[in-house]
């Protein structure tokens, strides 16, 4: 292609692609006059406009890997059930590691369950590796020890290249799951550690080195027994690749040694973190290498973190060789000094300085255990003597003295604000990284990571449309990735979000993890996802609480929901074996919430706490600001938000609080009474997250209210100058109307603790009350067309809330005077409204609910309700004022749910219709333009609140984009048509922390 022509194509393409599709044709007609070939070239490129955005967006390697993995997963699932291999029948897949796939299978001869491990591809075809595997496994199968998982057989399926290992089938969890990133209690730690040491002692007696001692290879059976898995076979694939590497290229022989295993992030991390220095260097291993790895496991049990944990495998290798581990006591002060000594000795870099053999370390651990038991025995003896001899009061005091140890350090709670964003840039959600070093949060400009040490903040690069859609963030347990719940650009719905994975270590585009769910959260082992799925339309078939296996993609529903109950805020237990969530039930206006735990191993759910356990009127789980309302710390405390009065009082008067309740490890119900951690009148909180050590709690503290916003109209109503927040108080303001001269706005507000009506001049920053003396609880003041009356509604002053009180339409002379009642409506009348035309000689109209309709009546300031003008069938009831009276009072318009505006002529009571551009089919509120031509409207469309202008012909221009958090409503042009006022939500929202928690 000629360079000149190509440049021309490029230029035209870029210019055309930016234009709306309708305008492209004109542009190209002009640009390509007399050059049909050029024109068809551009057209054929533009034809791919829609497809091209997703094309090549994820790097080739990732695409290839993902498609391979999906193929594998699908095949594995297919091949699994019922398939026979040798004399085993596969039952289900129970795991997948770097080494291969593990199935639960039935031995058809001996009629027992076994675990069958199939080896990863490649290894199966490597004859020499296979021979070595057999040799090692045979040696290991000779190990008969209660703490070593027995190998029954090394076999081969009918098809070539399908070697497998048959092992004892175990029921329980791995040590990795049991640790779950938190320190273990000493008693449990020592019990497990001694059994591991005994197994290592037996293996060393038989001269067998394990090579891959790590928490994931240590199994705890449900009976409490420790079993070490994969003896003698754990590291074979690694050695294979070392040899392959050596054969391929002498230079890289050593580099291949440990990287053989190390490709997928999980495998790298799981393996490298526990390697001894000699293993990292690729040297010959001996019994003392296993002891180093054991030391690393002990360290993790004592502190919750592996000793050389770093961000990448390479950094971990360097740390293992060069860095001294942080003393365990500095991470967990509960670690006894003697245990610290044992751990640090096992972790010596030089193997000469470690324990010589497993027997020595076992003896050291035994001594520790005996000492602990002696100490406990003493306490118990003292206690039992006291209980026998002393009065109950002394006994209680004594018990307090024994038990207060842990409680005392918790008394000083310190609340601290972490982000200090103004309302214009409020924080949407935030989460602390497991290591407590990084806060991830998003605000109105993007997603950020803040170092908690230096305060340094860096932006995470995201596609611009993506960052607007994030609703909630949480960390993966590995601390390198974030899970973002995001609204979809193509489907609206509170629970039809996408879950994305965002890397915090590299600048790559987010990756889609799951579709059409909400409140997603990752398990402590990073392998599973819990989420909520809501009814799709009216079908509850799939609604409820779910978990999914991130690798196989298999989903399982834990709780199903019906119409009047639902589930929210799933959180994982620290050991990953249960899910806590809030179970909500509604009956009329009554709401009952409870925190429940569903064990994943089956069995019924347990109630941890219900509203009854809190002060009267307080509800578990504060839904007033959105976001997750539960968190479960690594030391088994559930933290939850609560509110009192949100459903009864005006939201601004509700009381919000944050609580904790301890649960017993293994969640046999609540262990103790709930304790209130913090309490606010006006702010609510949500999204609690913890540091891995359980010492710091982070949460988002928010408040939201409606404000009146004001913008100048320009360019024939199709554009507004940037809107500004007009009401600057933070107690909420609702737009009522304009004064006739277009110089001031009337609004009602709670700012004086009563609900009053205010008037504020366009150029003024403060408002004055409209009436003197002021009314007590009133709102929505309009001026009658003859300009002699204000009409407004007033609620029964003494009533605790507006729903239960009668409501009156009142009038006052605009020149001043006493209030007079026009009429009174019974309590609970909702969605009634009134409007007056602004032109002299026009009239007023009111609406009243009648059955499912909203009836429209003439309204006279003196005589009240007049003749019926018509009715709106099935109005859009989410908004109190779905209709609007034209400035001259001659027509009433309302927006339907399906993209039409219906217009009623007041004079001849006939309806006409305008079809609105189909992209804007769900109009929430509507208002006539000041000239009676066209409308302003608000609309919720595909997760976005928009303010739009609609021409009399139904064409639409967007004036203001509120995004998904900024609710927009009630547009109202000034009588002179120069300004547009509307209500929008303002947020004050920041991340806070509680220390010493």
């Amino acid at each position, binding site marked *: 292609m000629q360079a000149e022509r190509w440049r021309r194509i490029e230029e035209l393409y870029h210019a055309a692609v930016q234009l709306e599709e309708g305008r492209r044709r004109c542009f190209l007609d002009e640009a390509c006059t007399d050059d049909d070939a050029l024109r068809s070239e551009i057209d054929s490129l533009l034809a791919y406009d829609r497809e091209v955005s997703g094309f*090549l967006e994820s790097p080739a390697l990732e695409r290839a890997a*993902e498609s391979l993995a999906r193929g594998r997963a699908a095949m594995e699932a297919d091949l699994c059930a019922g398939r026979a291999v040798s004399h085993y029948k596969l039952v289900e897949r129970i795991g997948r590691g770097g080494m291969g796939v593990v199935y639960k299978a039935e031995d058809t001869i001996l009629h027992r369950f076994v675990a069958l491990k199939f080896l*990863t591809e490649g290894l199966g075809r490597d004859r020499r590796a296979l021979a070595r595997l057999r040799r090692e496994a045979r040696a290991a199968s000779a190990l008969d020890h209660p703490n070593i998982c027995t190998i029954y057989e090394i076999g081969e399926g009918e098809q070539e290249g399908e070697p497998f290992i048959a092992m004892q089938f175990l029921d329980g969890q791995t040590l990795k799951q049991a640790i779950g990133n938190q320190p273990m209690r000493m008693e449990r730690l020592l019990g497990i550690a001694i059994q591991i040491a005994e197994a290592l002692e037996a293996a060393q007696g038989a001269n067998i080195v394990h090579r891959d001692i790590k928490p994931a290879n240590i199994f705890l059976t449900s009976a409490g027994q420790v079993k070490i898995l994969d003896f003698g076979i754990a590291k074979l694939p690694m050695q294979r*690749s070392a040899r392959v590497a050596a054969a391929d290229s002498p230079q*890289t022989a050593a*580099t291949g040694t440990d990287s053989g295993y190390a490709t997928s992030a999980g495998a790298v991390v799981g393996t490298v973190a526990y390697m001894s220095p000699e293993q990292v260097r690729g040297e010959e291993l001996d019994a003392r290498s296993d002891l180093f790895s054991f030391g690393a496991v002990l360290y993790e049990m004592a502190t919750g973190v592996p000793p050389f944990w770093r961000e990448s495998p390479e950094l971990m290798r360097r740390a293992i060789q060069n860095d001294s581990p942080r003393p365990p006591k500095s991470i967990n002060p509960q670690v006894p000094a003697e245990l610290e000594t044992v751990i640090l000795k096992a972790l010596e870099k030089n193997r000469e300085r470690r324990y010589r053999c497993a027997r020595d370390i076992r003896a050291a651990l035994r001594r520790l255990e005996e000492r602990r038991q002696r100490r406990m025995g003493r306490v118990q003896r003292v206690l039992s003597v006291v209980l026998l001899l002393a009065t109950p009061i002394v006994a209680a005091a004594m018990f307090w003295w024994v038990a207060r140890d842990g409680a005392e350090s918790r008394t000083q709670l310190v609340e601290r604000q972490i982000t200090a964003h103004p309302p214009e840039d409020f924080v949407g959600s935030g989460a602390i990284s497991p290591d407590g070093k990084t806060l991830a949060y998003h605000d109105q400009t993007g997603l950020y990571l803040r170092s908690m040490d230096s305060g340094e903040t860096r932006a995470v690069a995201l596609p611009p449309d993506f960052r607007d859609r994030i609703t909630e963030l949480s960390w993966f347990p590995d601390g390198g990735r974030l899970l973002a719940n995001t609204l979809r650009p193509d489907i609206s719905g509170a629970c039809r979000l996408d879950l994305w994975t965002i890397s915090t270590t590299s*600048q790559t585009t987010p990756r889609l993890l799951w579709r059409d769910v909400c409140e997603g959260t990752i398990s402590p082992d990073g392998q599973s996802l819990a989420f909520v799925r809501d009814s799709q339309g009216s079908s509850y078939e799939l609604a409820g609480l779910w978990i999914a296996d991130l690798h196989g993609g298999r989903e399982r529903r834990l709780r199903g929901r019906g119409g009047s109950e639902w589930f929210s805020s799933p959180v994982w237990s620290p050991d990953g074996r249960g899910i806590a969530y809030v179970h909500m039930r509604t009956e009329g206006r009554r709401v009952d919430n409870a925190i429940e735990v569903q064990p994943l191993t089956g069995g019924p759910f347990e109630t941890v706490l219900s509203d009854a356990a809190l002060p009267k009127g307080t509800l578990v789980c504060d839904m007033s600001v959105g976001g997750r309302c539960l968190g479960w710390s690594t030391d088994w405390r559930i933290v939850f938000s609560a509110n009192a009065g949100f459903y009864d009082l005006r939201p601004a008067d509700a009381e919000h609080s944050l609580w904790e309740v301890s649960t017993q490890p293994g969640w046999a119900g609540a262990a103790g009474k709930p304790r209130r951690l913090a309490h606010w009148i006006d702010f609510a909180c949500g999204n609690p997250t913890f540091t891995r050590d359980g010492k710091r709690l982070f949460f988002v503290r928010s408040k939201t209210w409606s404000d009146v916003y004001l913008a100048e109209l320009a360019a024939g109503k199709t554009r507004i100058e940037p809107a500004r927040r007009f009401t600057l108080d933070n107690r909420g303001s609702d737009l009522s109307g304009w004064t006739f001269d277009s110089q001031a706005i009337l609004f009602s507000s709670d700012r004086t603790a009563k609900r009053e009506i205010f008037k504020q001049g366009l150029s003024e920053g403060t408002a004055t009350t409209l009436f003197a003396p002021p009314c007590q609880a009133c709102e929505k003041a309009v001026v009658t067309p003859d300009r002699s009356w204000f009409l407004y509604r007033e609620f029964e002053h003494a009533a605790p809330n507006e729903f239960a009180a009668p409501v009156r339409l009142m009038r006052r002379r605009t020149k001043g005077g006493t209030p007079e009642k026009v009429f009174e409506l019974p309590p609970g009348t909702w969605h009634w409204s009134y409007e007056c035309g602004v032109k002299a000689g026009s009239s007023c109209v009111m609406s009243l609910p009648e059955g499912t309709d909203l009836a429209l009546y003439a309204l006279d300031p003196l005589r009240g309700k007049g003749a019926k003008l018509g009715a709106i069938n099935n109005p859009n009831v989410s908004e109190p004022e779905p209709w609007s009276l034209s400035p001259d009072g001659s027509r009433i318009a309302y927006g339907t749910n399906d993209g039409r505006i219906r217009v009623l002529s007041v004079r001849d009571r006939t309806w006409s219709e305008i079809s609105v551009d189909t992209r804007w089919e769900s109009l929430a509120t509507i208002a006539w333009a000041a000239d009676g031509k066209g409308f302003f409207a608000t609309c919720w469309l595909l997760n976005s609140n928009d303010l739009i202008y609609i021409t009399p012909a139904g064409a639409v221009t967007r004036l203001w984009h509120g995004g998904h958090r900024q609710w927009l409503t009630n547009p109202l042009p000034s009588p002179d048509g120069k300004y547009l006022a509307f209500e929008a939500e303002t947020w004050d929202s920041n991340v806070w922390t509680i220390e010493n928690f």
Partner: protein
Amino acid sequence: MSSQEGDAGGEVARLLTAWSSGDETALDRLMPLVYQELHQRAERYMAYEQPGHTLQTTALVNELYLRLVDLPRQTWQNRSHFLAICAQLMRRILVDFARSRRSQKRGGGPGQLPLNEALTVCSEAPQEIIAVDDALKSLSAFDPRKARVVELRFFGGLGVEETAEILKISPETVMRDWKMAKVWLIREVRSGGKHAG
């Protein structure tokens, strides 16, 4: 670090420096060294990768850089060169891989596949990689810079900034090139190459 490993790393670093300062022959010796490591890593990465759990290409390449080159006295130019080489090699590796998969798939008959074999048969991604590679060759004939942008970003997994740095153009130009190249390539790939030239 063992002496052998230090040597391999040192060698890569030395060659990189030599090449950066104009020694063209250094590249010939450098490529096989990097290829070796990258190939192993990419293959293992694909073999162990699990859905929804992917390590990123950049992470993989950066880890490799850290391992082979990150010695004192390295400049950021060296890192750029290294990333550029990786992108080029990754393209070769993935195309080879995709070709081999395609032939495997064709060769395999119906009936039950052995477990491990079955797991490796895969979907459309390889097909697309080959098609993109072919189309890229056509594109580079008349607009080599755009072809390089795609190579660095799609095969090298690099971001806009890094790509801009390597090609010594502005990020805006990278984005503009990327957009144009993508639409040209997608037409090429979807229409089976009939527009080329």
